């Protein structure tokens, strides 16, 4: 059974139609169970509907003002295993002068996106921290692969010290890669885990 879970951050659930394996996140405080997964923010946080005409995954966002405080989005994984992580950190409506986000395997930080010059309007940092335009993000964004030792994924947004504007997350997707699939990839590429 595939475990692919996408999260589209926005205010209004019906603002756009989510794709397969996706659900909206509208100020959901942990724990919420929807679409076969338990998730949520650590505390109340603000979100926005931005533009329903763009890619559904980029139509809205959740924002954390870069005032030195952070908020954490938690996802309970199916099990400790290997997962691909897709991210869109940006804003289709406004420039954001600084973007900060990190990924955690329970409490262990394994990826940090510290974008000191932020994102222009219609631009997004992907899971590897590379800036993509709104037009290019759907086809060019690069996933980050992690072998989790826990079954808890956390995504923390907001700069640790005061910076300009807000860190804004539009989309997050977690996909469990089965051991069989990993083995096939290793056999085809000669690359092991």
């Amino acid at each position, binding site marked *: *059974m*595939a*475990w692919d879970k996408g999260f589209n951050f926005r205010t209004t659930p019906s603002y756009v*139609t989510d794709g*397969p394996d996706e659900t909206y996140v509208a100020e959901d405080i942990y*724990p*919420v*169970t*929807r*679409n*076969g*997964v*338990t998730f949520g923010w650590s505390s109340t946080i603000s979100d926005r509907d931005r533009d329903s005409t763009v890619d559904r995954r980029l139509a809205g966002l959740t924002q954390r003002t870069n005032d030195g405080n952070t908020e954490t989005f938690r996802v*309970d994984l*199916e099990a400790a295993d290997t997962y691909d992580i897709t991210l869109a950190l940006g804003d289709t409506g406004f420039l954001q002068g600084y973007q900060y986000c990190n990924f955690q395997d329970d409490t262990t930080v394994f990826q940090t996106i510290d974008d000191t010059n932020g994102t222009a309007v219609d631009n997004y940092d992907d899971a590897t921290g590379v800036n993509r335009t709104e037009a290019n993000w759907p086809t060019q964004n690069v996933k980050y692969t992690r072998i989790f030792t826990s079954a808890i994924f956390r995504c923390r947004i907001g700069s640790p010290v005061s910076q300009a504007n807000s860190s804004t997350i539009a989309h997050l997707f977690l996909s469990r890669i089965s051991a069989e699939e990993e083995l096939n990839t290793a056999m085809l590429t000669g690359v092991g885990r």
Partner: protein
Amino acid sequence: MATFEEYKLAADAAHNLEGLRRDMRSNANGYIRDLNNRSLTELATVMTQDANEYLRRIGWVTRLTGDATLRAKLVNGLTALGLTVTEGQNSVAELRTAAQNLRDVVKTTSLDITAAANAVLAAVSSHETVW
């Protein structure tokens, strides 16, 4: 008299069970609504995954009740809040039975899925909310 830790354990347990009740009913309505825009296979998969998540969340509470030390803390916290252990146990039983049935029931046809969703709505009572 309860400690802050005991209060937090009891409040989190009650919050989790009430939130789970809300999610189970909301998702059950969603399954019926989604019959028009998701495949039966997708829906059946999500329903089973939801059921497993419900049981995981119930497990957070039964971990407390299954350990003598934690149970004593939970009881102190519940008592301080004016809540009874019996109500908590009844809630766990109600939600667990519905979750297990949802996990195990056949979900092949649209009729199966509608029946499974309606079974959740019938088994999990609706609680009043402020908003």
